[in-house]
């Protein structure tokens, strides 16, 4: 495919599709629950963690990415939950720190240099994905589906309104932290495909596009992962055809689909009608 052997391209293609699907599913929660700044901080923490894993021999980059992202969720989750921290503060303080740490760790990595495997953490890489990565992503997708399936009602109730859910006897905090933990895992596992800088687009844009088009949350849960997978597929093809970084290509494809959804959105027409 595009001059690259299929056994090299295939893991990235499958991995991209799975990452597009699971990132978009978690994006449904992140967008609806106004956790964008938290997700943003987690994705950059995962990047810094993975970079540390590459810089220090003997550390597993994936494990470090998970640890950093989960630690970020554990620290910022309670603050965000209690509305004590302005979202701009999270982005303003955490984003530059995590980026700085990530870049410092990468500069210390033995293989440092533009275009090296280490820097694929920043931009994503078509060649950086192995079948082992794909299997890990697949296992995470199954776990995600299982957790969402078992606690489907509770997650929906939390998505509608946290206070209303708590008042009807649902232990909202348990589900809130489950959402943060799953988001951290999805970010960490998908990091190598889109890269730390752009993974967030794969989480936010497909979910936002689905929200633009649909009024029924059940349909949003079907449409968002499909849009995410489509973004990944289009980005993957664009990346190979034009020799572009895969993360950037996926981000451009996701942004294109989102803009199309905004143009076609029935909600936009309702809003315009209301203004008139």
């Amino acid at each position, binding site marked *: 495919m595009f001059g690259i052997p299929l056994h090299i391209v295939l893991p990235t293609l499958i991995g991209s599709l799975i990452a597009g699907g699971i990132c978009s599913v978690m994006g449904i929660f992140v967008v609806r629950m106004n956790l964008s700044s938290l997700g943003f901080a987690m994705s950059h923490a995962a990047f810094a963690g993975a970079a540390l894993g590459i810089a220090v021999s003997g550390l597993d980059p994936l494990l470090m990415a998970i640890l950093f992202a989960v630690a970020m969720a554990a620290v910022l989750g309670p603050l965000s939950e209690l509305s004590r921290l302005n979202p701009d503060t999270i982005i303003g303080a955490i984003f530059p720190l995590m980026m700085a740490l990530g870049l410092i760790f990468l500069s210390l990595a033995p293989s440092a240099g533009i275009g090296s495997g280490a820097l694929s953490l920043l931009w994503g890489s078509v060649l950086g994905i192995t079948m082992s990565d794909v299997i890990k992503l697949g296992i995470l997708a199954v776990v995600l589906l299982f957790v969402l399936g078992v606690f489907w009602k509770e997650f929906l109730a939390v998505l509608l309104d946290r*206070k209303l859910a708590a008042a009807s*006897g649902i232990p909202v905090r348990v589900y809130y932290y489950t959402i943060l933990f799953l988001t951290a895992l999805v970010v960490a596992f998908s990091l190598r495909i889109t890269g730390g800088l752009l993974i967030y687009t794969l989480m936010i844009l497909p979910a936002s596009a689905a929200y633009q088009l649909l009024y029924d*949350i059940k349909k949003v849960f079907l449409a968002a992962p499909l849009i995410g997978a489509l973004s990944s597929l289009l980005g993957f093809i664009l990346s190979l055809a034009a020799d572009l970084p895969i993360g950037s290509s996926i981000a451009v494809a996701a942004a294109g689909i989102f803009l199309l959804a905004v143009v076609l959105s029935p909600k936009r027409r309702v809003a315009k009608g*209301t203004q008139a």
Partner: protein
Amino acid sequence: MEDRAVELIDVTAVYEGERIPALHGITFAVPSGRLIGIVGPNGAGKTTLLEVINGLLPVTAGEVRVLGEPVSPRSHRLRRRIAYLPQDLFFSPSTPFLVRDVVLMGRFGQIGPGRFPRRVDHHAVSTALAAVGMEKLAHRPIGRLSGGQQRKVLLARVIARAPELLLLDEPLTNLDPASKDELSGLVLGIHRELALTTLFVSHEPGPLLESADRIVTIEAGRLLDPVSA
């Protein structure tokens, strides 16, 4: 002794990070089946009182008992027997939930994790929507309804849950006069038909306050008439 649905004994509650108590030494009891109005100026502690009763806000001193059980923020099972309509809960036009689903979600706590709604749950939803005259809008997005219609949907959610205690925080605020009358009638209907202990906060003069068995006044976190309602 009369069966008490709600009992507060010398309750003090302070919001996290605040120094002045939102409620101070409240002693208050409501026998089962009563309709109680709570009035008072803005910031007096009316909403706090309802949140303490359903355990969403922990007390710093004193004791709260509801339906015979002590209340705390971890009283999830107890809250399944209480219906609470928060103040100013309106859904934006883009809210991605259908009317029928919003009502069904009221029963999710009772159904429990790992289980799916059964025929009896769907039947309860249909009956509740019919009771408030919203069955024809069951498949409309909740955010596309007017404020009055959204309130009716939330009342249908209350009916579908078949609670033992109903807490309403300013149920008539931001509604037009016709909707206020209609909503008041629905609340009174639910209270009478289900013999449901009902506590409501309201500033609005009208049938709801006029029908109350007792009106209690709260000011600066203290009840002005601290007796059994």
